[in-house]
C-alpha cells in the first residue's frame, strides 16, 4: 500500500517530490511515481495544491453503527480529594464540541468517598450529566481498574467522543481504554474542532513540536484524545444545570493485578512544574551552584516554580525533577523565564507552549531568542539583581 495519486488532478508540478521524508516520490516526464519506500506518513497529502494526493482509507474494525454513539464525555481526573484543573479546561472545550453537535456533555468521575461539591463543580463548568463511580478499589489510581471501569461505562452509554487530560494519569490509562474498545486515540492535543459530519479534528505537535498534525478517527467510536493541560481555557457557566447519575459496575471491573505499596507526594512544592503558572528556569549560564539562588529568589518573589535546563541538572546544581525539556517535564505556564539557558531544541520542546517567554542571555545569537516573547540580551549577573530590585521597589511603592 502506498499514497494514491489522482493523475486527472496532478499537474506534475513536482512540489510533492521534495516533501516526502522518505524520497518515495519521483518526477517523471508526464507523471509522478510513488515507490515502495512510501511509509504512508501522510506528509505529502496536504502539500499538493491540486488535491491530487491521498492516502488509502484506514481500517474500519468490526462493523458497527457509528450513529448509535452520541454525546461528548470528559474524564474528570480526581486525585486525593481534588479535581485536576485540566478537567475543567476540557469541560469548557467539550461544551463547545457538544453544542456544535447538538448533544449532551457528560463528566465521568471515578474515585472513592467522592464529595458532593465536586459533582456540583463539574456541572458548573458545563456538564449536563455527571456519571459517578464510587468504589474503594478506585481510591488509588491503577491503570487496570480505572480503564476497565471507563470501558464498561463506554459500552453501556456509547459516547461519540471521550476527552482526558494528557497528564501522567491520562496518558497512562487512556491508551488501555482505547485498546480495549478498539478505537483510535490521539495523544497530547493542543487544538480540537469538529467537522460537519461529526469528525473530531485533533491537532497536536509531533517531532518534538517542530511539526503540527491534524488527526481524525473516521471509522471508530468513541473518538478519543488526550489534551495537554493549560491549553484550553476553563469557563464557568454560572446557572448551568446538570444531574448526577451513580453507576454501579460489576465487581469484576475493579480487579487489578497491581498492588500500590506507597504514594509519596512530591515534598518540594517548587518542583510541581507541570502545574505551575509561573516558572523561572536556570541553565549553565549561572556558572556555579550557589548562583542558583538568583533563580530561587525571583521565583519566590513572583510565586513561581523553579525549573532548569539539562545542563544545570548535569552540573548537579539542582535536582533532576526540575528539568524542563525532552527528557524532563513538558510545561506550559503563563510566564516562563529562561535565565542563562541557550535554548537547545531539547529544552525548547519542553517549554515552547508557554504563553509568555522571557529569555535572559548575553549571547544575542542564542537560539532561545527564537522562541522568546521578550529577549533580554544582557549579562544575567547584572540584569537579574536589578530586575529583582525593580519588582521589590514597585511593590514597596504600591503597598
Amino acid at each position, binding site marked *: 500500500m502506498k499514497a494514491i495519486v489522482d493523475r486527472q488532478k496532478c499537474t506534475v508540478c513536482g512540489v510533492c517530490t521534495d516533501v516526502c521524508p522518505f524520497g518515495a516520490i519521483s518526477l517523471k516526464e508526464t507523471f509522478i511515481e510513488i515507490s515502495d519506500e512510501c*511509509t504512508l506518513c501522510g*506528509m505529502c497529502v496536504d502539500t499538493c495544491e491540486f488535491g491530487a494526493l491521498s492516502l488509502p482509507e484506514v481500517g474500519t474494525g468490526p462493523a458497527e453503527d457509528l450513529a448509535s454513539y452520541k454525546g461528548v464525555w470528559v474524564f474528570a481526573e480526581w486525585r486525593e480529594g481534588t479535581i485536576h484543573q485540566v478537567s475543567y479546561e476540557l469541560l469548557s472545550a467539550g461544551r463547545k464540541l457538544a453544542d456544535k453537535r447538538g448533544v449532551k456533555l457528560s463528566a465521568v468521575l471515578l474515585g472513592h468517598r467522592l464529595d458532593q461539591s465536586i459533582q456540583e463543580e463539574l456541572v458548573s463548568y458545563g456538564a449536563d450529566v455527571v456519571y459517578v463511580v464510587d468504589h474503594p478499589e478506585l481510591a488509588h489510581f491503577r491503570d487496570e481498574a480505572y480503564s476497565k471501569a471507563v470501558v464498561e461505562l463506554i459500552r453501556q452509554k456509547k459516547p461519540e467522543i471521550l476527552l482526558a487530560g494528557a497528564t501522567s494519569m491520562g496518558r497512562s490509562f487512556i491508551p488501555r481504554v482505547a*485498546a480495549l474498545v478498539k478505537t483510535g486515540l*490521539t495523544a497530547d492535543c493542543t487544538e480540537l474542532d469538529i467537522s460537519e459530519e461529526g469528525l473530531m479534528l485533533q491537532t497536536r505537535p509531533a517531532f518534538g513540536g517542530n*511539526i503540527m498534525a491534524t488527526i481524525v478517527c473516521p471509522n471508530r467510536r468513541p473518538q478519543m484524545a488526550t489534551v495537554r493541560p493549560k491549553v484550553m481555557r476553563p469557563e464557568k457557566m454560572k446557572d448551568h444545570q446538570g444531574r448526577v447519575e451513580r453507576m454501579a459496575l460489576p465487581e469484576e471491573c475493579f480487579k487489578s493485578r497491581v498492588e500500590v505499596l506507597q504514594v509519596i507526594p*512530591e515534598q518540594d512544592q517548587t518542583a510541581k512544574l507541570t502545574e505551575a503558572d509561573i516558572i523561572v528556569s536556570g541553565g549553565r549560564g549561572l556558572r556555579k551552584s550557589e548562583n542558583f539562588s538568583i533563580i530561587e529568589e525571583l521565583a519566590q518573589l513572583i510565586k513561581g516554580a523553579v525549573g532548569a535546563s539539562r545542563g544545570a541538572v548535569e552540573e548537579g546544581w539542582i535536582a533532576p525533577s526540575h528539568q524542563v525539556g525532552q527528557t524532563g517535564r513538558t510545561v506550559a505556564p503563563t510566564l516562563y523565564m529562561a535565565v542563562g539557558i541557550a535554548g537547545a531544541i531539547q529544552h525548547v520542546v519542553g517549554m515552547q507552549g508557554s504563553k509568555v517567554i522571557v529569555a535572559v542571555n548575553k549571547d544575542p545569537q542564542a537560539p532561545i531568542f527564537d522562541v522568546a516573547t521578550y529577549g533580554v540580551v544582557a549579562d544575567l549577573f547584572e540584569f537579574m539583581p536589578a530586575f529583582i530590585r525593580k519588582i521589590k521597589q514597585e511593590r514597596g511603592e504600591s503597598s
Partner: protein
Amino acid sequence: MHIAVCIKQVPDTKNVRIDPDTHTLVRQGVESIINPFDLFAVEAALKIKDETQATITVLTMGPPQADEALRDALSRGVDDAVLLSDRAFAGSDTWATSTTLAAAVRKMGDVDVVLCGKQAVDGDTAQVGPEMATFLDMPYATFVKKIEVLDGSALKISRQTDEGVEIWKLPTPCLLTVIKEVGEPRLPSLRHKMRAKKATIPVWGVADLGLAPENVGLSGSFTQVVRVFSPPRRTDRVLIQGPIEEQVEQLFRHLKESKVPGL
C-alpha cells in the same frame, strides 16, 4: 528471566522541520537515531541482567534500515534482536504498532518483562507501551524510574507522576515504560560491537506473526493524519537591548502589559 525491549528508530528531531517559505518538510541532514527513551529501556534491562540471570531480546518494527538500531543495542550488551519488517506494516498508528509488537512478544513465548521507553520523540504519543500491554493482557506501569526484581515472579517499581512518586508491586509477566532516571545508557563495548556486527538478525513479517493483513499497517489503524503543517511562529517577539536599567524598565513594562501573574 527473559526481557524484551522495544526500541524505535526515529529521525533526530532537532533537524526535522518545515521550511517556512516553501512549506515543505526539510529532510536534509536528518539522521536516524535510537529513540532516547528506548536507550534508557535498554539500560534498565542491562541493569537487571547485571544482577540476575537474564536474557535480553530487542525488537523493533520499522523499515529494513532499522536493523542498524538493533545492532547498536546488541553492541551495548543485549543478547538477541528481532526486526519486524513488512510492507504491510506501513502507515501503522499506535493501535496497529502495538498489535504488531504484541504479536512478536507472543511469538517469543517466554517473555517475563517487556520494557519500552516512556515515549518516542517523533510521534510523542506514549501510547504504544500501554496498548501493547493491553493486547498481551499484562499489568503495566508507566513513567518508571526504578526497578527491583523481588523474586522470579514479581517486580517492585517506583514511578514518577505529576504529583510525586508511587511504589507499586507487579506480578510478571508485565510491561514497564521507563524514564531517564533508570540510568544513563552505557556505551557500546568492543567485544559486543564485534558480536553485533556478525549477528544474524531474524526478520519477521505479517505471516510469521500470524497476523491478518487487515489488522496491521494502515488497514489496522484507526487514526489518520489529514494535515501536517508548521506551528505558527511567534510574531510578537521583542528583543530588549541597551543599558541594564533601561532593559529592566522595558521588561517590567512589557510584562505588566501582558498581564502576567506574579508581578
